[in-house]
């Protein structure tokens, strides 16, 4: 066979299928799908979508938990020339309706379990042309069951380019209105090449898929995995919630590369969870999305001495852009992990308030130029205006950087260090305080499992710092002993005025600590006796 250009994501699947059609692509619960079956079924779905009116560039919703059909849906939509838009099954119907209407979605692929919600969408005034995966008997929308898809296995002939959209991920904006981040075949394929090469993903690898598809971590699993012709084991939602079950899936599936959030690693480091298990296959653990508490990383690295650990950094807008391989169990009271060095083919700038590059060593906003960067925000010219930094280069033809909104500094060795979100820096009593630093110090306390610090505007126009913590079961700490502990390290103006103990933290749809809900919950509880 002659050389074939690969510039679209579904071509990764057909390449893997050409190479070995019987290689497993996806495993989820009791179901498996080979690359040959994935290619055949996603192409058949693409023909059905085209027959139902899906045009190049159309956005198609995927409303499903983890299953091998979810993988078929993603690739089928892209093979039809469309872009997949994950609809989070745990979202309230009003948010789903917002995403569907905001993104102009007319076709949805839904799993049977979501039938009641699909019915509810109609009551919210949502109009859809087709729902695939359900039958007309179930719902009021025109529908098509999986058994009606047919079996045309060849790829549809449709002009699609690498600059075309391939997925749109909705994330919570700081104002609470979700915003759609548009990625193209070019940006996603670039990410697949970066990850397959940096982490040596090959056909003897078994990747986990921990993150649900509405969370950008999933793109490394799916696309880096397909680039490496690896097998991807989707970890069922129910197993992600309980540490012992998560550990047993990782062990029994013989996962070789686990990409996850710090929260999951904190769960796994709970005493007893990893004992008497064999993780000799697990050679790489990647984590990202939030800062990793060092004491949990320390204990996990001691329990898994044969595993390499990487801190992966990058907002959803740019995929991953830097990483840091943790050289060994870090000191538990040491500085936060660096975000490391940019991947090859990524350029980083650190900008001051006037958009001028800062001298090396100084803190500024990180701006990124990379083939993995998004096209922009769907339907949000206001955000797009702020999102990019243009560096004039060739007589009016600018180089485009994405502003991350993250504060960093670059040390003498060229390694980048994270200083929190630009909007996570508050002025308290006239001083600039990094809320992430307050959290990092809290987590160094032996009794603290996780911490969340947030600013609360006061009537006199300043900002008070509040914090909440979760404690170990054996903890004897109180808010007042914790504040005394903080005062030993932090300047007085950075010590939270209020500290609350919670049983556990509310999470966002992507599993991050939901500081907004903690703040709202604590406002409602403001007379509770648990506060100091």
């Amino acid at each position: 066979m002659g050389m074939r250009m690969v510039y679209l994501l579904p071509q990764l699947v057909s390449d893997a299928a050409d190479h070995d059609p019987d290689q497993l692509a996806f495993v989820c619960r009791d179901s498996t799908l080979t690359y040959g079956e994935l290619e055949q079924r996603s192409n058949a779905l693409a023909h059905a979508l085209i027959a139902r009116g899906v045009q190049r560039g159309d956005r198609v919703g995927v409303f499903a938990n983890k299953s091998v059909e979810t993988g078929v849906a993603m690739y089928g939509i892209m093979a039809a020339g469309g872009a997949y838009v994950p609809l989070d099954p745990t979202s309230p119907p009003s948010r789903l309706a917002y995403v569907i209407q905001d993104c102009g979605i007319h076709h949805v692929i839904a799993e049977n379990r979501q039938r009641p919600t699909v019915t509810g969408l109609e009551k919210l005034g949502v109009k859809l042309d087709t729902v695939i995966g359900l039958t007309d008997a179930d719902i009021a929308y025109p529908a098509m069951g999986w058994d009606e898809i047919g079996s045309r296995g060849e790829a549809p002939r449709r002009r699609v380019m690498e600059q075309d959209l391939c997925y749109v991920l909705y994330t919570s904006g700081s104002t609470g209105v979700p915003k759609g981040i548009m990625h193209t075949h070019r940006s996603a394929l670039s990410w697949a090449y970066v990850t397959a090469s940096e982490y040596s993903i090959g056909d003897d690898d078994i990747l986990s898929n921990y993150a649900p598809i509405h969370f950008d971590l999933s793109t490394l699993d799916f696309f880096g995995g397909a680039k490496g012709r690896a097998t991807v084991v989707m970890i069922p939602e129910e197993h992600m919630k309980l540490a012992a079950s998560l550990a047993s899936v990782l062990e029994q599936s013989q996962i070789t590369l686990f990409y996850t959030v710090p929260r999951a690693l904190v769960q796994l480091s709970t005493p007893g969870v990893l004992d008497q298990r064999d993780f000799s296959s697990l050679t790489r653990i990647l984590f990202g999305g939030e800062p990793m508490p060092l004491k949990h990383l320390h204990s996990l690295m001691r329990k898994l001495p044969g595993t390499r650990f990487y801190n992966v950094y990058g907002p959803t807008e740019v995929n991953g852009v830097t990483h840091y391989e943790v050289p060994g169990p870090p000191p538990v009271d040491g500085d936060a992990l660096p975000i490391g060095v940019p991947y090859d083919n990524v350029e980083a700038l650190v900008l001051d308030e006037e958009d001028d590059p800062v001298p090396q060593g100084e803190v500024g906003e990180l701006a990124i130029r990379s083939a993995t960067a998004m096209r922009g925000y769907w339907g949000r010219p206001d955000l797009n205006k702020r999102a990019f930094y243009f560096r004039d280069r060739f007589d009016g033809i600018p180089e485009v950087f994405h502003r991350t909104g993250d504060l960093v500094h670059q040390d003498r060795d060229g390694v980048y260090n994270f200083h929190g979100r630009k909007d996570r820096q508050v002025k308290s009593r006239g001083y600039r305080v990094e809320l992430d630093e307050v959290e990092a110090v809290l987590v160094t306390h032996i009794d603290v499992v996780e911490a969340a610090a947030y600013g609360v505007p006061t009537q006199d126009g300043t900002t008070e710092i509040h914090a909440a913590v979760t404690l170990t079961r054996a903890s004897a700490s109180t808010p007042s002993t914790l504040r005394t502990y903080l005062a030993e390290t932090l300047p007085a103006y950075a010590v939270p005025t209020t500290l609350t103990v919670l049983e556990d933290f509310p999470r966002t749809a992507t599993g991050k600590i939901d500081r907004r809900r903690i703040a709202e919950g604590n406002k409602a509880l403001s007379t509770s006796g648990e506060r100091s």
Partner: protein
Amino acid sequence: MSEGDLRQGLREFISHELLMDETAVLDDDQELLLDGTIDSLGATRLVGHIEGTWSIKIPPEDVTVENFRTIATMAGYVERRVVDGSGP
């Protein structure tokens, strides 16, 4: 204490405390972890509640999908631990 009492106790805790909805209808065989009724926060609270109410210590390796997927499996687990005396 019968298994029926156990199930009733679990059902009340989940509807009143986790869902904050006393009118919630929960089937004994409903997949509570899969359908999102119980998230990881809920699971932690549920374990604490069971330990406090039925005076057992649940080791982390027992907090599994097999034991906690439905009200029926939870009640079965708690009963084994309480009745069999395979306690802490």
